[in-house]
């Protein structure tokens, strides 16, 4: 086995044998396919084919017998061996095989041939008998001898027609009966002067034969009838003369000839012999067929009496039409039903079918055996592939290094060429056989080299396209890498304006190219698409921008919970949005921190104040108790007064401190309501009436309207005014006037307190409002110095404003309250 594997000869023989096996395999396979169903035909059709072949055989026998009968008859009648025979096959008849056997004496004039008239034999209707038909043509002294053979397996009559050019006597004909033939003579012989036979152009399914009796018109062609028949009056009639000695045969270009006495039809060309011995012919136009269908109807309209008789045998349908009228004529129409299996089918000519009966009997055996052999040999070829004398290991020979795809392409191209040898479109047996032969030769070789390539793992690499693709791929990869690198470098080296400018420039360039392309459609399309893209980008940019703007507004308004949604934002916008977010975070943290520290401060102040209050209570109480003690020392009494005053001041200071811290941090309830500011002023002045009077300070209220409603918290507003009036009581010049003006100012109601300070004011309004800063330099008179600060904070809590204006000794406080 090892030796065989290495032997080139063994492989060669195996390949040859395998080719033969494949050939048998393919042939049997094709036959089996044919037997079953390959071209849409049925199995029955093959049986029919066989029967056809058998029928041909019978036909041949019948022909021989008829031939013999005719010869013997001929010899008996003519007593001469001098004749020629011609075999004609009727090419018009596709559904059966008609043979015309023509026997012609070499010197007809030597014989005294009788003119036959009034004889006709027409025996189509007989079944299962061999029939001899004959026609006589008096003018040419011809005798047409038909031998019909009918075989029971066939569905249509098989006819052998023998034309015997000979004069026959009536009695002679009757004598011509042989054991296989029956000859009947008709009662009457209708043919007198001339017979015109029209064979219609072949219809695919039906063949028409028409016969006209033109006895009345002699040889004149019934022009008027034809014009009616074809629906045309004007058609060309060509005439030509024939030599007396010339054969009365009309050759037509397409080769088909049907000779029927003095009227000839061949492939739509009608010709007839007139009484002067001239041939006339006319061209039949294309609409013959359609008009023919209207024929019977026209006949009915044209002629006085009209009758139609139909008669059948198995496969033929004939009409006999008798007409009397202006143009007396008789029309015989014979129709043949076409068998759906055609005699021209390529299978019919197939040698395999024709002589393949025995082959067909063993077809499955052949198929099986050839398949087994193919497999066995193929296995050996596969196993032994790649081994040689050079090495124990499989290696690729020079042949195995030919690119595999090219090899396959050659095989395929040759296969196509083989199929193309047959000029007919489609695949028939010839193609199949040729293809089989080529594949049988090619397959073992391909198998051998494929196995060898697989073994040496050169299957893919040996392909030409692999090499080309790999080469191209490497090139593209390298190029792509370089381009990507260049683009990246370029992109990172230009700033944002450059990028947008670059995109715009590219778009403009594209537009320019589109405009120069001389195609308006292209230009419009490019610009449209470009606008679409830019529009989309613009819309996104606008959305992003509006988002950012909203975020900016929110942050500016102090809303620290707002976060910019940077999802889906374009590069630069996203960056900006993220920056805004981190600013917001920073601010939120800072605000929270400051709020926290403020709150802590307030809490600290409150708690400390509370803790201070308890010891202070004791101090105040004991000072009071001391006061009540009867002290002898006068100075001690004075000191106690100081203690009393200062402890009261401390008490006030502590309370103010708590209020100031709460008011400035907003840690206080504010209920804003509609409040009449005039009423508050009056109420407040009422509370201070005594104190003001004590200092001879006069208040003058100037209000444009009786009622000025503002949105404020009455208690806090009172506190503000209390503080202001308190200040007036403390710091206003004794005996001076205080003006209180109320009026509308923009969206506010303004309340202005104006008074003259008794001390010189060397400090600004803002400074006055700072905690512990006081208008006078002497800090130890009264009050905590927090009054104005508390007032301003309370005004702000009520969404109002407080302004202090110092103008020389004029001290002016403006309260701005929201209009109610």
């Amino acid at each position: 086995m090892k030796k065989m594997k290495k032997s080139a000869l063994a492989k060669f023989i195996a390949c040859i044998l395998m080719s033969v096996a494949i050939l048998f395999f393919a042939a049997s396979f094709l036959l089996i396919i044919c037997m079953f169903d390959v071209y849409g035909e049925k199995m029955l059709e093959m049986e029919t084919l066989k029967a056809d072949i058998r029928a041909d055989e019978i036909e041949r026998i019948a022909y021989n017998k008829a031939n013999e009968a005719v010869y013997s008859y001929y010899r008996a009648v003519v007593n001469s061996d001098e004749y020629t025979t011609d075999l004609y096959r009727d090419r018009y008849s596709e559904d059966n095989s008609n043979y015309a056997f023509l026997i012609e004496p070499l010197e007809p004039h030597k014989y005294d041939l009788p003119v036959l008239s009034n004889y006709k034999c027409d025996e189509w209707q007989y079944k299962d008998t061999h029939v001899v038909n004959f026609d006589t043509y008096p003018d040419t002294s011809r005798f047409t001898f038909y031998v019909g053979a009918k075989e029971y397996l066939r569905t249509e009559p098989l006819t052998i027609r023998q034309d015997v050019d000979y004069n026959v006597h009536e009695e002679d004909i009757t004598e011509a009966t042989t054991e296989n033939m029956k000859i009947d003579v008709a009662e009457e012989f209708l043919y007198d002067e001339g017979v015109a036979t029209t064979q219609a152009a072949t219809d695919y399914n039906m063949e028409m034969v028409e016969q006209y009796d033109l006895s009345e018109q002699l040889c004149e062609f019934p022009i008027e009838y034809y014009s009616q028949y074809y629906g045309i009056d004007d058609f060309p009639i060509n005439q030509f003369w024939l030599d007396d000695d010339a054969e009365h045969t009309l050759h037509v270009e397409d080769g088909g000839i049907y000779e029927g006495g003095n009227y000839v039809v061949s492939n739509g060309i009608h010709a007839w012999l007139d009484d002067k011995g001239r041939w006339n012919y006319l061209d039949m136009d294309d609409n013959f067929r359609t008009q023919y269908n209207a024929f019977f109807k026209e006949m009915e309209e044209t002629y006085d009496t009209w009758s139609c008789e139909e008669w059948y045998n198995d496969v033929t349908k004939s009409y006999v039409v008798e007409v009397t009228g202006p143009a007396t004529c008789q029309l015989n129409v014979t129709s043949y039903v076409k068998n759906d299996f055609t005699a021209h089918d390529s299978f019919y000519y197939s040698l395999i079918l024709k002589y393949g009966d025995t082959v067909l009997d063993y077809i499955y055996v052949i198929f099986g055996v050839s398949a087994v052999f193919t497999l066995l040999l193929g296995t050996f070829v596969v196993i032994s592939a790649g081994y040689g004398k050079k090495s124990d290991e499989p290696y690729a020979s020079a042949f195995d290094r030919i690119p595999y795809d090219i090899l396959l392409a050659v095989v395929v191209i040759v296969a196509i060429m083989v199929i193309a040898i047959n000029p007919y479109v489609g695949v028939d047996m010839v193609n199949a056989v040729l293809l089989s032969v080529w594949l049988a030769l090619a397959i073992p070789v391909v198998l051998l080299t494929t196995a060898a390539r697989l073994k040496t793992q050169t299957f893919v690499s040996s392909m030409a396209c692999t090499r080309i693709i790999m080469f191209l791929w490497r090139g593209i990869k390298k190029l792509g890498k370089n381009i990507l690198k260049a683009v990246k470098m370029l992109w990172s080296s230009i700033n944002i304006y450059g990028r947008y400018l670059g995109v715009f420039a590219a778009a403009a360039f594209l537009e320019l190219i589109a405009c120069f392309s001389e195609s308006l459609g292209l230009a419009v399309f490019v610009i449209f698409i470009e606008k679409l893209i830019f529009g989309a980008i613009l819309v996104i940019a606008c959305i992003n921008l509006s988002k950012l703007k909203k975020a900016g507004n929110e942050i500016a308004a102090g809303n620290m919970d707002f976060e910019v949604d940077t999802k889906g934002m374009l590069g630069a916008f996203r960056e900006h949005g993220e920056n805004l977010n981190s600013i917001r975070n920073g601010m939120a943290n800072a605000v929270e921190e400051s709020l926290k520290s403020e709150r802590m401060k307030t809490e600290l102040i409150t708690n400390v104040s509370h803790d201070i209050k308890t010891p202070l209570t004791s101090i105040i109480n004991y000072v009071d108790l001391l006061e009540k003690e009867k002290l002898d020392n006068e100075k001690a009494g004075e000191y106690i007064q100081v203690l009393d005053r200062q402890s009261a001041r401390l008490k006030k200071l502590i309370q103010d401190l708590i209020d100031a811290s709460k008011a400035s941090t907003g840690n206080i309830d504010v209920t804003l309501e509609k409040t009449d500011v005039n009423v508050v002023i009056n109420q407040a002045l009422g509370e201070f009436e005594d104190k003001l009077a004590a200092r001879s300070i006069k208040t003058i209220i100037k209000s444009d309207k009786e009622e000025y409603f503002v949105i404020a918290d009455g208690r806090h507003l009172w506190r503000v005014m209390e503080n202001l009036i308190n200040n007036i009581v403390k710091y206003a010049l004794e005996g001076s006037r205080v003006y209180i003006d109320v009026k509308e100012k923009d969206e506010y109601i303004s309340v202005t307190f104006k008074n003259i300070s008794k001390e010189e004011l060397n400090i600004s309004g803002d400074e006055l409002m700072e905690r512990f800063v006081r208008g006078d330099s002497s800090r130890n008179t009264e009050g905590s110095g927090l009054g104005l600060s508390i007032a301003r904070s309370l005004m702000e809590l009520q969404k109002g404003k407080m302004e202090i204006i110092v103008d020389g000794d004029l001290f002016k406080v403006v309260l701005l309250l929201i209009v109610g």
Partner: protein
Amino acid sequence: MYNILVCDDEKDIVEALGIYLSSEGYGVVKAYNGIEAVDIMKDEQKGKDIQLVLMDVMMPVMDGIAAMAKIRGISNIPVILLTAKSEDTDKVLGLNIGADDYVTKPFNPVELIARVRAQLRRYMQLGGGGKTENTDRLVYGGIELDDRKKEVTVDGEPVSLTPTEFQILKLLMNNPGKVYSPKDIYRLVWEDAPIGNENTVAVHIRHLREKVEINPSEPKYLKVVWGQGYKLED
């Protein structure tokens, strides 16, 4: 003689209060945290003798609010809370739980004594007040107004009012809780159009308050509704 329970963790304050109350003729029982106060109140002997409690709010061990709640379970004698907290919410909480009055530290001893006296008078002598059948008598809280006699008493103490002040008080007492604007008051009391003298009403109200209220700057009855007017409310 009435006995008063004084409770504060600050001994000096307790001592001072003791001195004040003693000088006014009250008996003083001292406690230094909430539990002590409650224990005293629970004591059958001592508890029965006590007619008023002065209680600090912020105390160790048990605070004043909790102690007061316990005392309220035993007795309904007047309780005055003393506290350093001056917020309104603290006051409301204390009063809601059952305090009768509320004094913020640092307090004025005179005011405190006045409040103690007022509470005791109402509790012991007037029995918490009650409506008399006399239609000419108007009573609101501790204020009693006799229209026939033209007399006004606060917690039993007679108060002398001018006719105008009397009319204003009568007006407010007729509809406690209703806010009268200065103009309304002027129109109804003076029976004249209030032109250019709105603060007359304010001045009268302040005078009235000084007479009726123990601490006029923190009025108990005559409340100012700033920007609206005045009302009588407890």
